[in-house]
């Protein structure tokens, strides 16, 4: 099977599941498909840095969580009629997605810029670990900062709104997330095939060579890291809306690990890799969880087998399209 056909199949399945949920009157299917979609967006973000740029970030929970908290905090201010800032000028909260999204994107991009500027001075394991350290900083900050729920998290009792749509309807919200996923995939496809993408992928393989032709690998990688953080941050904002709740756990290193697993499981540097990875992961979690209490054991076993024997991830395995990543 060609990768292109496989990708179309993935989109088909992703759309079929919530529709099946509607027909069978199983709203849980819709929630599940929405969760997969949102996590896939986070993965598409990480894939830009990790897959195409070779920047193994173990701290993308930071951006996912920052996006999530931005959406949660601003919406909760609006729901409580409690302005964010009264002095020197009044800033009110809002539950308008069209305002929340750009803010989540810009603020997580800003965090990615700062973290990227400092982290890109290192490489290899040090890069993995310094990105982890920054995410942990934010995680512990969120835990010990009492204003927005601290360790208990922050509830947002109404999903944010979008003009003309009823976002509380599961299928509608899925639709919004699906459009975002398609947009993120399209964006990363354009990006990785552009001149910038060429330089990014070259920097991953041979940074010295890139510098010798007069391109700064640092600049290329930093831009990729910021875009990557911004996309993952948007996913975080959607995730808050899905759960109507945000807690420090979205900032924990488990979240970073899971986003990374989606990317690797699906296939590194493949456009639909994160979607396939997130879907396989969530489906495994759900089905194994239904069969046995110790489902994590079997999940671990399957992951190890994938790493040891299925290089190129699920897509690589199914499409038999070998690449030298």
């Amino acid at each position, binding site marked *: 099977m060609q990768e292109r056909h496989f990708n179309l199949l993935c989109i088909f399945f992703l759309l079929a599941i919530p529709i099946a949920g509607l027909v069978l009157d199983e709203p849980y299917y819709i929630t599940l498909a929405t969760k997969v979609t949102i996590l896939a967006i986070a993965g598409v973000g990480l894939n830009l840095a*990790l897959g195409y740029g070779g920047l*193994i970030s*173990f701290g993308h929970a930071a951006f996912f969580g920052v996006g999530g908290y931005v959406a949660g905090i601003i919406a909760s201010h609006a729901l409580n009629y409690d302005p964010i800032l009264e002095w020197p000028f009044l800033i009110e909260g809002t539950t308008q997605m069209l305002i929340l999204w750009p803010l989540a994107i810009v603020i997580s991009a800003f965090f990615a810029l700062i973290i990227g500027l*400092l982290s890109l*001075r*290192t*490489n*290899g*394991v*040090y890069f*993995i*670990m*310094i990105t*982890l*350290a*920054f995410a*942990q*900083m934010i995680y*512990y*900050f969120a*835990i*010990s*900062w*009492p204003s927005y729920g601290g360790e208990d998290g922050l509830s947002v009792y109404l999903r944010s709104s979008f003009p003309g749509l009823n976002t509380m309807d599961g299928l509608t919200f899925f639709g919004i997330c699906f459009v975002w996923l398609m947009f993120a995939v399209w964006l990363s496809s354009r990006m990785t095939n552009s001149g910038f993408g060429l330089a990014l992928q070259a920097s991953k393989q041979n940074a010295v060579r890139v510098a010798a032709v007069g391109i700064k690998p640092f600049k290329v990688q930093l831009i990729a890291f910021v875009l990557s953080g911004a996309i993952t941050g948007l996913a975080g904002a959607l995730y808050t809306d899905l759960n109507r709740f945000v807690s420090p756990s979205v900032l924990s*290193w488990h979240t970073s*690990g899971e986003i*990374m*697993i989606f990317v*690797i*499981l699906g296939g*590194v540097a493949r456009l639909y890799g994160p979607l396939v990875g997130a879907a396989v992961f969530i489906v495994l979690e759900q089905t194994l969880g239904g069969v046995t209490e*110790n*489902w*994590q*054991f079997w*999940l*671990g*076993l*399957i*992951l*190890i087998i*994938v*790493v*040891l024997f299925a*290089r190129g991830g699920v897509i690589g395995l199914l499409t038999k399209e070998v690449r030298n990543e």
Partner: protein
Amino acid sequence: MSITLFIEQVLNGLQFGFMLFLMSAGLTLVFGVMGLINLAHGSFYMIGAFAAAAIASWTGSFWLGLLASLMAAAIAGALVEMVVIRRLYKRDHLDQVLATFALILLFSEATRWLFGAFPLYLDVPAILSGSLTLPMGIVYSKYRLFIIIVGILIAIGLFLLISKTRLGVRIRAGESDREMIAALGVNISKLYTIVFALGAALAGLAGALIGSIQSVEVGMGEPVLILAFVVIVIGGIGSIKGALIGALLVGLTDTLGRFLLPALFGAFLDPASATSIGSAIASMLIYILMAAVLIYRPSGLYGKMA
């Protein structure tokens, strides 16, 4: 604030630091010699703690429990190395991260299945319970002092092992030139298994020692694992000396930060916000320390420049 209270906190920091050193020594050796990122290192800490708790409650002897922690973690380490880990040495960091992340799931669930979801407790033996009066009238827990002494002894032992024994020579050679020592007829895969098991045993010991202070439960290894990574990254990956310095730095920074920062902020803020800001920053302090070290020295304090 009294000086004795401060010294007590310094001792707490040292105790925490030496415990982190036991955790980090294996991690940094495995990375330096085999080039492997092992996220599952925290599982050996957990295995050691469970083995100690189980054996100690079965035999009634804390000391047999400690011995059991070393053995159980070493055996688990050797087995995992032979079955899974050795297939990962030639893989990139990404595969190593994923596979060892999966190992954590495996170990945690297996432990939960064996011991159930409830935490176990490990009692301090009579000889080490209670406290001791140190010079200057400082009263300090005997058991924590014991951890400090064990840490110092192990640190000395490891330095002797690395610098004076044949195994140490091979370990050092393995760090610098893998192909060469293989060509010289050293059984490299046996060496790797030994190094990995040694590191696992030390982590197991750390888990057992801490098991008497905290509860023994599934998932206890993960927070410590992250701290151990912070330690080896600060110290420079592959360096035992770096791991020691890094561990003590992290132990002291964390303990003293939690102790001093709220008081410091109390000097110019109202008590409630001083406590919350102080403890928020204190909990981030070691990560700030790590980022600062890496920005100043991208390969850690004692790391080789890439």
